[in-house]
């Protein structure tokens, strides 16, 4: 069976080393937080100026001065630190985050990311912190479905949507498989399939227009 969003989020959480500093992008990536164990020591960054962000706030804990990048009220964990926007993005751009997890419209075999703009002529452009996150974190994980609603693959030879960043994605976690992309993976001759869910590498080769290297472990799939 293919993976649910929660299962994808759990898989990403399991791949984040203990003690990592992590930014979870707006939307589905925030689900990853639910699967991080308290003992992992993972510290969450929110680009609007905070480290050690806690879970969403409810009821009396809601404080309008304490929100995440999606403008949702959140809480503060012990060991938190606040800083201004230039310092927060310096932290990202300077390569100090170990991992960030982002959604995507498309990812290319070379690790290019498209997640900010549909490319429609009349769309109002709005980028937020997407480009800064894409090029800043040491490792960029993408969380997405492998296929768009119209059935076309979102893991592609070259992005057709406007790019967010060049050669910046390391791993792509989807409902059907986990992939390693980017310059390192590509040097092997293509995208590496690390694990599959409810489908085989042969099926993926049918679906996708990128060369796949089977790197699933015997226990995987």
């Amino acid at each position, binding site marked *: 069976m293919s993976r649910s969003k929660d299962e994808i989020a759990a898989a990403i959480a399991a791949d984040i080393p203990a003690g990592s500093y992590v930014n979870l992008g707006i939307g589905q990536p925030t689900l990853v937080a639910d699967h991080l164990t308290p003992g992992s020591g993972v510290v969450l960054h*929110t*680009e*609007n*100026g*905070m480290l050690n962000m806690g879970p969403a706030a409810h009821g009396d804990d809601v*404080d*309008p*001065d*304490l*929100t995440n990048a999606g*403008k949702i009220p959140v809480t*503060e964990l012990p060991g938190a630190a*606040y*800083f*201004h*926007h*230039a310092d*927060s*993005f*310096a932290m*990202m*751009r300077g390569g100090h985050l170990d991992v960030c997890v982002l959604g995507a419209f498309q990812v290319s075999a070379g690790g290019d990311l498209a997640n900010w*703009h549909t490319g429609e002529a*009349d*769309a*109002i*452009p*709005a*980028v*937020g*912190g*997407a*480009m*800064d996150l894409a*090029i*800043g974190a040491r490792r960029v994980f993408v969380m997405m479905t492998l296929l768009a609603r119209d059935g076309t693959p979102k893991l592609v030879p070259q992005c057709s949507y*406007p*790019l*967010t*960043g*060049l050669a910046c994605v390391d791993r792509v976690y989807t409902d059907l498989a986990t992939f390693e992309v980017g310059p390192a993976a590509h040097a092997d001759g293509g995208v590496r399939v690390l694990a599959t869910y409810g489908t085989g590498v042969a099926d993926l080769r049918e679906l996708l227009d990128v060369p796949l290297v089977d790197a699933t472990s015997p226990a995987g799939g």
Partner: protein
Amino acid sequence: MSATTYAGATAYDDALADVADGATVLVGGFGMAGMPVELIDALIRQGARDLTVVSNNAGNGDTGLAALLAAGRVRKVVCSFPRQKDSWVFDGLYREGRLELEVVPQGTLAERMRAAGAGIGAFFCPTGAGTLLGEGKETREIDGRLHVLEHPIRGDVALVKAHVADELGNVVYRKTARNFGPVMATAAETVVVQVDRVVPVGDLDPEAVVTPSIYVDRVVVA
């Protein structure tokens, strides 16, 4: 020069009496956190036109920045994320061609204002290189990575919401409402900070001051 404190019923209006037509106005806040709503309302009453507004978003609902836009006072918006669920005022004006828009990646927006405040002439930045937002910009490969040259963004006026100021103009913020405030306070000719409370000089911990008084021209407390 020393900061001036404005208090009383007309404090917000008095603090913004001299904003000129055509001014570039830096407006703090990320969503509603740190949004200087009362200052924006005073700016609407003040009536300056043809403004360039630099802010992370382009207004929500029908109040604050959205009301300033709706009043027809703004010529251009420089921001990272104009399109939101409730940005109908901006969306409408933009689609009618009545608003110029410059979209800047959020970190580059902050860094360009930081550069203005820090006397940096321009900087090579990897963000946006090779994308639509890097088009038309000078590019250079540095250490194997593509960069675009980015220029400072200076304001004539900055509208900042903070938490507490002392009588000299030293300022502290509260939680993630800090966001763009400290950067904008370095980047404008006239910096107006609205606070919840003003305390005597000596009451703020010198180790914990976030915006030193040198950056603050006007402190407004209602």
